[in-house]
């Protein structure tokens, strides 16, 4: 609230300072039924700058950008693009005017080649045939000009996630976009890929393109943006110049109060059970000689052994795709190991199914909550039940009285919003969806917690909450295996840190000895 008043002054000042505005949105409101997604939002983006649109999940960032790119019509308010009125236009008009959006979820045809995907809808033809050669050469020259290197003749299915995203950006540029909107582009990228993306975006800015990037990661905002608009509860609450602000100030504007940032908290968190000594009979989780085959039949985990002690957060860092997902799947019972054993405490659970492992004390926050962690069309109450359904049955089937009670308690304890257990999980923001998963996995007895990318795609407030939960689990004597692509998160939370590279642990160090600079080479295999 406090920020709302202060936002108007810098707005008009900025408007006069930078005369050529690429985008000006004024008093934009948008509601879906009773839900007010945007209220009186103001956004001004100067031509040729990188503008960060930040805010918690559900703050209305995506809705605002959908309005800008013509997917939604605003309920009220005006939009100008390069000085021309664009209120209520459709996607075709937006593309024609040079506004292009790269969505969080890729919209590519996996069986078609890069070039075919790019020209889809405006194919160069020779007679009635697709001119494959010209399509590819067009795409190749565009790729070279922008630095978005990708082979136009490969099919999308063969590409890595980072490459597929480059194709999405190319697709928008191919349609002549001069204002590029990127919706949380780094959510799916590994750290080196993020750096590459920054290079590309800076290159585009140098060529005069305007870029709006939606994000809630503060380090990214600081790294890439020139100016910032902060949104909270559907309103624009602050407009800041990146050079003259701090992460603390941005976070405060996002959440509306002071927040303990992960990196600060690390200093104070002297963990009680920091033991860098590996291999003990009392390990909460112990992995011995684990080898796992991947989907293509190749060896993705190679004779891996390690222990997670009770009262310890064991962090696994590393670039994604080095066997972390397979490791988690094997420990959770979702994938079979080729050889090796998994012990929970003293129990050999190698042959256990998912349910028996849960009953043996294993909790699992999966890395992909949309695919694994939640049934999106199930209610909050039903999702809180997932994996525990056998504990809520009676002679007449499921005990819905007890389920409702359980749900009400969990919603309250874990502050899931909106606090209505009968809402479908799909309708919640990312942070609140993750709270459902956390409530389910940490709201029951467990001894070992697998926390995979626990804060991916959630907002600052929820990150703080989730980190506090993980620390509380450690203090309570649980063994926590934290796998995260976010190195700063691993550094902030873990007691011991291993870097996974090509299916092995490239290093295993006490956290006190670790820095990002030290671990970097291990992540890329250089050490």
């Amino acid at each position, binding site marked *: 609230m406090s920020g709302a008043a202060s936002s108007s002054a810098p707005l008009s000042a900025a408007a006069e300072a930078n005369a050529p505005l690429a985008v000006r949105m004024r008093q934009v409101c948008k509601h879906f039924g009773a839900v007010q997604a945007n209220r009186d939002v103001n956004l001004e983006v100067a031509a040729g700058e990188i503008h960060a649109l930040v805010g918690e999940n559900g703050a209305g960032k995506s809705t605002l950008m959908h309005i800008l790119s013509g997917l939604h019509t605003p309920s009220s308010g005006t939009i100008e693009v390069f000085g021309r009125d664009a209120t209520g236009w459709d996607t075709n008009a937006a593309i024609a005017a040079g506004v292009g959006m790269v969505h969080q979820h890729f919209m590519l045809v996996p069986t078609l080649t890069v070039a075919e995907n790019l020209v889809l809808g405006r194919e160069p033809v020779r007679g009635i045939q697709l001119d494959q050669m010209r399509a590819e050469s067009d795409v190749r020259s565009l790729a070279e000009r922008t630095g978005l290197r990708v082979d136009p003749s490969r099919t999308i299915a063969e590409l890595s996630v980072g490459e*597929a995203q480059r194709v999405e950006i190319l697709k928008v540029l191919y349609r002549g976009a001069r204002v590029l909107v990127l919706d949380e582009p780094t959510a799916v990228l590994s750290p080196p890929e993020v750096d590459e993306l920054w290079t590309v975006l800076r290159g585009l800015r140098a060529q005069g393109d305007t870029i709006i990037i939606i994000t809630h990661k503060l380090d990214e905002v600081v790294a890439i943006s020139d100016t910032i608009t902060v949104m909270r509860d559907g309103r624009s609450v602050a407009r800041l110049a990146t050079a003259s602000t701090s992460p603390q100030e941005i976070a405060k504007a996002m959440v509306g109060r002071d927040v303990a940032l992960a990196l600060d908290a690390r200093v104070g968190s002297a963990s009680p059970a920091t033991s860098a000594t590996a291999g003990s009979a009392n390990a909460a989780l112990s992995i011995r000689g684990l080898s796992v085959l991947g989907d293509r039949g190749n060896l993705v985990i190679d004779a891996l052994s390690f222990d997670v002690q009770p009262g310890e957060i064991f962090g696994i860092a590393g670039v994604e795709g080095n066997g972390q997902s397979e490791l988690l799947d094997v420990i959770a019972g979702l994938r079979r190991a080729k050889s090796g054993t998994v012990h929970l405490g003293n129990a050999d659970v190698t042959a256990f199914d*998912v349910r028996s492992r849960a009953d043996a004390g294993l909790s699992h926050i999966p890395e992909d909550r949309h695919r694994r*962690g939640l049934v999106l069309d199930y209610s909050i109450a039903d999702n809180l039940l997932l994996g525990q359904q056998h504990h809520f049955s009676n002679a007449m089937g499921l005990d819905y009285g007890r389920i409702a009670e359980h749900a009400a308690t969990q919603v309250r304890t874990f502050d899931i919003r909106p606090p209505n257990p009968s809402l479908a999980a799909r309708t919640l923001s990312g942070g609140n969806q993750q709270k459902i998963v956390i409530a389910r996995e940490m709201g029951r007895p467990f001894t070992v917690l697998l926390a995979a990318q626990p804060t991916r795609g959630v907002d600052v407030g929820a990150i703080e909450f989730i980190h506090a939960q993980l620390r509380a689990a450690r203090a309570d004597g649980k063994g926590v295996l934290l796998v995260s692509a976010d190195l700063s998160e691993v550094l902030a939370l873990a007691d011991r840190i291993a870097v996974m590279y090509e299916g092995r642990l490239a290093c295993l160090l006490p956290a006190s000895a670790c820095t990002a600079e030290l671990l970097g080479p291990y992540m890329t295999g250089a050490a």
Partner: protein
Amino acid sequence: MSAPREHGILMRAAQALLAPVLAVAIAMVVGDLLILTYGESPGTVYALLLEGTWGNAYGFGQVLYKTMTLICTGLAFAYAARAGLFNVGAEGQLAAGGFAAALIGLALPVATPAVAAVLLCTAGAMGAGAVTGAVPGVLRARFGASEVIVTIMLNFIVLALLNYAVASHLAVPETLHTEVMQAGFVSRLGAFLPAFAGSAANLTIVIAVIAAVVAWWAMFRTRSGFELRAVGLQPDAAEYGGVNVPRTWLRAMIWSGAFAGLGGINFVLGYKHYYEEGFAAGSGFLGIAVALVGRNHPLGIIAAALLFATLSQGGLAVNALVPKQLVDILQAVVILAVATTVPEVQRLLQRAASAAVRRGSTEQTT
């Protein structure tokens, strides 16, 4: 979805009804146009249609008779659909159920107590349907074979085998049906409600309604139903939740087949008391439409079964004025309208289509 909220029930019912009601309205308009091309007045034709179905006891009896089979085949489709499977095999499962019921009825001694005989025949019908449904279930669970293809093909195989068995070994000479059974008769409604006299309606309709209630309870009030629907919505999340996905598919196909097989007792136990080639031809496929219009919900299926039974009986009633195929067109329009408006139907169809594509390319989404 399953947590009941009193104040929301009316609202949800209204939302659920909107699309089907709209579909019927569109079908009526198309029907008007078609009737006009025959030079008849739509009002007269529709009046006759209603009069011949709900307007007299015989017609209503016939509607109830057809409703019974359609409830069963509708439940069959819906139960598999809730697990994300597209069971197109109700036609064969239904025939197998009727055949098994007749065989048991023929084999039982005349003196078998009526209740025991009916129970045995009913169990046989469900068992035969279940076995027929289990075949595509096993192939899907074990080898990942598309249940769509397998169930379509299995229809031909099952019907051909049954026809062979009847024609070569069991038929009464000069007919396509078996001998009349010794035991296992279910009373017709006409036996105690004189108004229904002459119509084929019989007490198996009660069994069908009970089956619908049981199906509702199984889907929405039990642990296996919770797991079944989770598998249908998001198999990966179900697996994460400790559900054995292939086993759930198999179980869904077995129950799906059992529901379809149950439909066979309508004709065999309640009406003719023998098995006859093609006794319910088309009812299996029409069950898909019933389930889609009923939004894969047992209560919706009862209503949709009544609707489609009314239309097909009404076709006979209006045959003097317009060809009865007019009603087939109405049914088709209802199905198309529902298929294009109801979101879960679209999702189901999309998934059936993408299942084939997914096999070729590796998973490349997010």
